[in-house]
């Protein structure tokens, strides 16, 4: 395995690509008791239409997430219990573009890693076990449907996108998951859980060579073909300007979203991620004049915040929280973006924000989970997230202003609102 040392971060990454196409990243942390393994496939809630053996398949919404639930079943029983015996806390998540399985443990690490790699690479389900999961996932869907944060975000995505599968709910609906069978799950596993579509990341006090040897021994010798996917060809314009829903909540909540231009794979993705997050900090972060004004006028409270996100073929920026006047705050955000595009930033303020944002990125490296997820996203997106200091060095005001000009215009904006139900 080849080590690369990152002087400014005090970290070393060992990387290797196995003959079967699996990419491995190991970040040794000799002073930590915890060892963390993250095994992910490039397959998420957006991947519902894809080509397998020359045929286009349309699968039900929520299938990647359903598969994640069922992967813990093994011929011998359940992988959760095997890992638990060794004190490992395993779990998994499905995002729009990836499914990740992970555990952390302080002992029996090799044994646990072997269990992780085995249960994720060997599917075992029956019609009966698949049917049994319907009730559990239906309750998960009911739970998120009662969650205003989820509703407001999901509705913002559906307003921003009219075609892209970014608008598909990751968990699907109670109706869509009722159409999932053991056979479709096997098809999806076969297509996406091939070593060449997966990344293994380990953080902790481990020997990188042992990790690589174990992966060679456990995983299939062959990779798989590249699976073409269809995310839909999304037009430039937003799908709808507004989305509004009434729920049992204490006060109105909102998210203002901007449909941004997507970026092809490569280091530009990382640069765009940093520019987008800097634009958020500068425009409406805690140090920004706008935030301070809105806060002191009582138009926002400490729930206010936002971010910039990229998914396959799409990118968007959003801000929101609780507010008695969502439309006013959305207008103020747009006015401030317009003003900055015209007038630029105060240079002192810009330098301060850059300094602060660098510190936040560094703080993120305290978390093993965060390291593993960002390295995995980097592998899928063709960039190295540990190169953030170099990107920060090169960012100029003009870069941010260009980002705002390209992405934060009024025609690209949507507003998603949740209002309290009338008593």
């Amino acid at each position, binding site marked *: 395995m080849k080590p690369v040392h990152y002087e400014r971060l005090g970290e070393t990454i060992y990387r290797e690509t196995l003959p079967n196409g699996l990419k491995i990243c190991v970040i040794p942390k000799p002073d930590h008791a915890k060892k963390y393994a993250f095994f992910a496939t490039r397959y998420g809630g957006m991947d519902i239409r894809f080509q397998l053996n020359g045929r286009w398949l349309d699968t039900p919404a929520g299938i990647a997430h359903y598969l994640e639930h069922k992967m813990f079943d093994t011929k011998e029983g359940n992988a959760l219990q095997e890992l*638990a015996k060794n004190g490992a806390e395993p779990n998994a998540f499905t995002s729009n573009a990836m499914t990740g399985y992970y555990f952390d443990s302080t002992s029996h690490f090799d044994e646990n890693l072997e269990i992780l790699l085995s249960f994720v690479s060997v599917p075992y389900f029956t019609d009966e076990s698949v049917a049994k999961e319907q009730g559990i996932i239906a309750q998960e869907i009911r739970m998120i449907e*009662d969650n205003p944060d989820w509703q407001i975000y999901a509705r913002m995505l559906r307003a921003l996108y009219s075609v892209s599968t970014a608008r598909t709910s990751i968990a699907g609906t109670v109706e869509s998951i009722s159409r999932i069978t053991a056979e479709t799950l096997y098809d999806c596993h076969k297509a996406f859980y091939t070593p060449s579509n997966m990344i293994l990341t380990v953080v902790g006090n481990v020997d990188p060579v042992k990790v690589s040897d174990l992966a060679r021994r456990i995983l299939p010798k062959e990779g798989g073909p590249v699976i073409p996917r269809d995310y839909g060809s999304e037009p430039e314009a937003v799908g709808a300007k507004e989305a509004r829903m009434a729920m049992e909540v204490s006060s109105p909540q909102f998210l203002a979203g901007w449909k941004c231009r997507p970026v092809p794979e490569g280091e530009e993705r990382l640069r765009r991620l940093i520019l987008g997050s800097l634009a958020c900090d500068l425009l409406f972060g805690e140090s920004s004049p706008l935030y301070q004004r809105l806060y002191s006028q009582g138009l926002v409270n400490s729930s206010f915040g936002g971010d910039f996100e990229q998914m396959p073929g799409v990118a968007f920026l959003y801000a929101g929280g609780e507010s008695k006047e969502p439309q006013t705050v959305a207008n103020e955000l747009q006015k401030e973006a317009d003003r900055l595009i015209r007038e630029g930033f105060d240079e002192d303020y810009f330098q301060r924000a850059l300094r602060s944002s660098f510190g936040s990125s560094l703080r993120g490296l*305290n978390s093993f989970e965060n390291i593993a997820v960002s390295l995995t996203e980097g592998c899928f997106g063709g960039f190295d997230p540990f190169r953030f200091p170099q990107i920060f060095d090169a960012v100029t005001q003009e870069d941010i202003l260009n980002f705002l000009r390209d992405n934060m215009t009024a025609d690209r904006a949507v507003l998603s609102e949740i209002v309290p139900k009338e008593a």
Partner: protein
Amino acid sequence: MTRTQLAGGVFLTHLPAKKFKTNLLSAQFVVPLRWETASANALLAAILRRGTASCPDMGALAARLDQLYGARIDYTVRKKGEAQCVGFVASLIDDCFAPGGERLLEPAAALLGELICQPVTRDGLFLEEYFESEKTNLIDAIRSILNDKRSYADSRLLQEMCTGEPYGVPRLGNEQITAALHPQLLFDAYRDLISTSRLEIFYSGSAERSRVEDALRAALADLPRKDPAPLPELAPHALPEEPRFITERLDVTQGKLGMGFSCGSDDAAALLLGNTLFGGSSNSKLFLNVREKLSLCYYASSLFHRQKGLITVSSGIEFENYQKACGEILTQLEAVQKGKLEAWELEAARSTLLNAYASMGDSQGKLENFFLGQAATGRNETPEMLAEQIRAVAPERIFEAMSTVKLDTVYFLQGKEAEA
């Protein structure tokens, strides 16, 4: 880990570690949790965070924090046993990563000290605009507990179960008491808080103890200290003669079930293990039966409230499955009480807890939260000592301790249209 006294009732817990990118510095006042004072203390923390004599508004504070490479200072309001802990947690990058090679601990500690000792004032009171705006924010925050139905149901269960006991008081108090607060009362509460209540300080990072102590002595030089009040004492929970059943209705699609149990044993290590077996992990009896076997829910878990000797269960279910879920949860508790366990279950529960204790030192946030809980409830075991206690628990002790667990209160949140 070392714990030293810096002044009357002021203690520093120093947790040295070079493995983090950041330093954590936390200053927490520990006071009794009471309806009458909880909201005032919560409001104080928020108002103090608005400005100091030298940085009188959010803009000036933010600018100073940005200069320290995006250091964060957040106000916190937490409940630990029957104590309320209010204060600030600062996180700053370690000096060795500062591109300019600056020393960051001293200026960050100084700012923390200013937030506590030198608030911006006018005519001997907090600025009226800060008072009013944070009062509104606090009322909004108290109301917004409703938005997360799981937390709402969990909190309602505790309130009902511990009516008349400090443990039933939510960390932010309530809306009516907050609405009645006025500027003079709050400023008196502030002077009282900083001069008489226990102050617990935690540091995790690369700096040696003497450097941290020097920085803090300088930062807190203006802290007026009188005779510190003793730590709040915890009252035992009063078990009702018969279990109580409470149902509420809101416009929701999923029902939330909360079940509260009272523990008659004081063998905390055995109860902790028993609770882990019952519903404390993803291999517990509740997970394997209520979720995996019967498909009744997505989550069903239990929490052991060590300081108060309670166990609470939380689950989200279809409205019509209320009886079925309650019945199954009680069946699983009985299984633990009667020792109906497979060998792997005990092994898994024990290693889950040992893993959690062993990895605590890898997270500055978890360390701070753990040691604050210990300090606020007058305990001094380290994670290693607690792990040792868990290793020593024999199965019989678990069954014996869990046999004292009795159903106390059941809370059910159901939809508006559902049949009763």
